[in-house]
């Protein structure tokens, strides 16, 4: 029997989760106040994922960077590679919020979308 603890990050309530792992690798979750907490705890044990937010460089003097997010949580081991790819991009304007910049990153079916748009720079 092994005990793990996590703080749930699904919503601002931040429930303190307790996860008991028995000898057969089965998990029992307690401390959650909603079903999403249980799902989060099980994912933390089997395949931890996080939503990634960052900025990408833009080809514009007025708007040097624009913010992006993954549209679903990404497996934690892939975060470093995604960030590297984002920082090496060069986005052209105009660009609209919601635009998909990267589709199906490394076969995870997670997309990267722009969270703020910008017009072309005025001359």
């Amino acid at each position, binding site marked *: 029997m092994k005990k793990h603890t*996590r*703080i*749930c*990050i*699904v*919503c*601002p*309530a*931040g429930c*303190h989760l307790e996860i008991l792992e028995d000898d057969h690798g089965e998990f029992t979750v307690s401390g959650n*106040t909603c079903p999403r907490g249980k799902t989060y705890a099980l994912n933390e044990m089997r395949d931890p994922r*996080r*939503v*990634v*937010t*960052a*900025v990408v*460089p833009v080809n514009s003097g007025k708007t*040097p*960077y624009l*913010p992006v*997010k993954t549209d679903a949580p990404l497996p*934690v081991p892939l*975060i470093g590679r995604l*960030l590297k790819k984002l920082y090496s991009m060069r986005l052209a304007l105009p660009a609209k*919020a919601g635009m998909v910049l990267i589709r199906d990153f490394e076969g995870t079916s997670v997309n990267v979308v722009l*969270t*703020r748009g910008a017009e072309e720079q005025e001359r």
Partner: protein
Amino acid sequence: MKTENADIAVIGAGAAGLSASAVCARAGLRTLVIDREETPGGVLLQCIHNGFGLHYFHEELTGPEYAERLLEKARSAGVEFRMESAVMKLCDLGNEKELTVYSGADGVTVIRAKAVILAMGCRERSRGNLAIPGDRVAGVITAGLAQRFLNIDGFLPGSSAVIVGSGDIGLIMARRLTWCGIQVKAVVEILPYPSGLSRNIAQCLDDFHIPLRLSTTVTGIHGRDRVESIGIAPLVNGEPDLSREEIIPCDTVLFSVGLIPENELSRQCGVEINPSTNGAYVDGSLMTGVPGIFACGNVLHVHDLVDFVSEEAENCAANAVGYVKNGPPTMEKQLRTIAADNLSYVVPNACRRGVPTRFYMRPKVLCRRAELLVKKGDGTVLLRKKLQYVKPAEMITADLPAESTAGCPDTAELRFELRPEEEAKV
């Protein structure tokens, strides 16, 4: 000099100003929003992380997305924006309020409005506010400024950092710096518990094994031109234990040590400020002591969720609309609210009898289970609410229904008390 007339002038185009102005314009009132920045959205525009909107929009959004939704609401309602404009002076002329506004494009403009909504938000406390000893070197900035550098301007503030204070902005920045390749060596907190939300400790510090040093203070910032190291020491009986001082090499120190509501304009025009919130005293309709001037959002009291800001701002705006359409309410004696046991404040500071009211309050204590009681002066309990995981970092809300205050005599007071039932494990 240009002059303009409006029904309602809203100062600030952040979450509070945008949410409030949409309500005013939708009610058919000419609504002007004045803000110093180039684009509306306020601090949300630099908060590129997700976690906003779960209560208000029922989905998880990033800051820029949340701002865009509010802006869309305001624009479609017909709100007019005066951007890159600073309000220099606010005057109460009785039935009208006068705002002296300066902008590069128009010079000085005088705006006359029937009501004003204060929505200026906060600024950050800085090293100077804390009197941190040591050298005056480059590389010492507030967490919010670092956030702006990274997320809007695209500058890296340094290569290795220590964050002082465990407020949410500091925690979010710990993750952001790490994801930008900057090494975060520690987060130092003077209190025995973290000031930010638990989920941010989990996803911004624990994920990256960043140490959180509780009950620890800064003994000095050292360097010649640029920060070279920071000294920290544990607190023992309120004093730093210098025998256990530790010097951490780093080139950047970020301060995330609280926010100060920007109430210079409010004070100037005679609005009385509550020392326990640093925001205005407001009545049950979120009107300040100056009739016709209302306040909402972080300029009223510091919120931990933007969703509550939107909700409070909409409520405030609905009252401002009523004030403009029906004229000042007849003198009505409201019930005074008192933050008693274990609460540092309650907003609003009064409650209209027989009007359902939402109260926001901040606990002074950390506990696992607690009960919130709202009592009338004679001890009658009007409301009981069970709470889980009470902590100063998280605001408490309570709704008092109309019927519970309808029969109160006008001399009654409402006492808010928090009763801890089980101690928290730190």
